[in-house]
């Protein structure tokens, strides 16, 4: 990789990093406003126009609060817990393709932190690591409520990661690759019967969605921080910005889960009629192939973020609609319903691929990845 390209990719990584933080910041605001709207209220509107400075005010509050260490706590691990949660949450957005590529002369800039051929495995691995942040924090607090919350988080994540992985296998069987970029490109092969994976995998999507809620510890599966039973769950003893990091990590996880679902099932940075639009730009408006491709890439990135925001809204919408599951209900749903359903989905997908209902992927198409032929 040329040094110049490396510099460009570094810039992209910085932008992705900043965007994840910004979106997580404004998720706190969005959560409060959406909660308010769903309850016939208006939400925070005092700080700045429409309350848009509210996250800043919250951050100032978080930073100026007392740093509290509970007696008998393991101090090093107590600090390490939220750090780990935050780091793993931020790491997982590195492989997500936020757009196709931009081409300036000979320089090609991928709108993606880094393209690796095991992208989906990487996301799974890092997200699974995230539960260590909760486990360590809960254990180091020297508090029974924290420990209970941490144990719940661990067992919940293990149970739902199984169903999630099985739902994913059906997608991987169709795509034949783990690379998120290739999975995205496959959902828009021009000239073929093609559409987003949601059409081919509706059952898999529902399983994946439910598991995503459990993985990100969002209501109705927010048992690790279940206020009514466990005070605050794993972050009972946390205060100041260490608590802030936990809350932040949750929102970044929601953002990443939304992005992954958009890539896997909703076509990632593809949008309808992109080929027609690029043809039109190229032939009717006399643009060069590169310029047309750049425009399509930028529009695709915008569309991708719209899909992500729609998912984030859905996460919040569900949170303020459904009550929390009981713990035995949660486990029963995971082990006796979702996992058998996911296995059935794998068999169904295999049968459809075998009988040829789901067509094979055109490998020639993946090599170029251009929107303009």
């Amino acid at each position, binding site marked *: 990789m040329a040094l110049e390209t490396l510099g460009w990719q570094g810039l992209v990584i910085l932008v992705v990093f900043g965007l994840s933080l910004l979106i997580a910041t404004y998720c706190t605001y969005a959560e409060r406003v959406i909660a308010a709207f*769903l309850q*016939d*209220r208006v939400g925070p509107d005092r700080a700045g126009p429409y309350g848009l400075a509210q996250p800043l005010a919250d951050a100032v509050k978080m930073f100026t609060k007392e740093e509290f260490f509970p007696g008998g706590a393991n101090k090093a691990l107590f600090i390490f817990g939220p750090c780990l949660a935050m780091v793993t949450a931020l790491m997982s957005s590195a492989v997500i393709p936020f757009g196709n590529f931009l081409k300036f002369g000979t320089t090609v800039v991928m709108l993606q932190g880094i393209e690796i051929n095991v992208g989906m495995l990487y996301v799974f691995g890092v997200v699974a690591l995230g539960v260590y942040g909760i486990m360590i924090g809960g254990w180091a607090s020297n508090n029974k409520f924290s420990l209970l919350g941490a144990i719940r988080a661990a067992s919940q994540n293990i149970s739902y990661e199984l169903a999630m992985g099985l739902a994913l296998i059906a997608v991987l069987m169709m795509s034949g690759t783990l690379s998120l970029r290739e999975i995205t490109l496959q959902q828009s092969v021009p000239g073929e019967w093609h559409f987003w994976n949601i059409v081919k995998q509706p059952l898999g999507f529902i399983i994946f969605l439910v598991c995503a809620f459990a993985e990100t510890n969002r209501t109705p599966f927010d048992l690790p921080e279940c206020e009514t039973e466990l005070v605050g769950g794993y972050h009972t003893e946390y205060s100041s910005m260490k608590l802030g990091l936990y809350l932040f990590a949750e929102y970044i996880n929601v953002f990443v889960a939304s992005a992954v679902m958009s890539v896997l099932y909703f076509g990632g940075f593809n949008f309808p009629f992109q080929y027609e639009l690029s043809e039109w730009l190229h032939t009717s408006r006399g643009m060069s192939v590169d310029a047309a491709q750049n425009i399509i890439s930028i529009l695709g990135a915008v569309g991708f973020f719209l899909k992500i925001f729609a998912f984030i809204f859905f996460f919040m919408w*569900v949170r303020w*609609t459904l009550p929390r599951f009981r713990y035995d209900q949660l486990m029963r749903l995971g082990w006796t319903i979702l996992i058998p359903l996911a296995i059935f989905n794998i068999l169904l997908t295999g049968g459809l691929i075998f009988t040829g209902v789901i067509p094979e992927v055109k490998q020639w198409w993946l090599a170029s990845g251009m929107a303009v032929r």
Partner: protein
Amino acid sequence: MQSLSKRAKVLEKKPMTLAERAYLPAIFQGLSITMRHFFMKKATIRYPEETRPFSPVFRGLHVLKRDEQGRERCTACGLCAVACPAEAITMVAGERKKGEQNLYREEKYAVSYEINMLRCIFCGLCEEACPKAAIYLQADKMAPPRYERDEFIYGKDRLVEPADPDKRSKRGIQLTPEQASSLKVQLQTA
């Protein structure tokens, strides 16, 4: 047990149907309900920018009225202070001097007139007791919150309504258009 109202319904615990066990129909029902509320009119009133609509008989902040020539109506008889169940009103009476006829309607007037808004219960008995139609509780104004206790003791500076006919309170005896225009001319010449 015998049913008293005969409206009691006996419920049997049945096993859940497949739709109920699948959760999803109920979830979508719930989501549609919350989405309806998302677009509903919000119940919030953004005080202080917006205020709740007042009833026309609302009893709010007091006002000391002026007459059609811009003179204070109050004659410091003390009936309001006597009528007040919360003992919120105090006043000091004084005799009108020569040349003050354009300031005070009666020969006796209130040199100071204070209402403690922390004591006041806004019952309106002072309004009923007043023989000179001088004190009213406004329907469109409330005693606002303040930081210091002594700021709640309202003196004449905050109670007496302005002489300008356009800025007068909407409660009590109102000026006719002719009176208002002649008073305006009188105020301009003075």
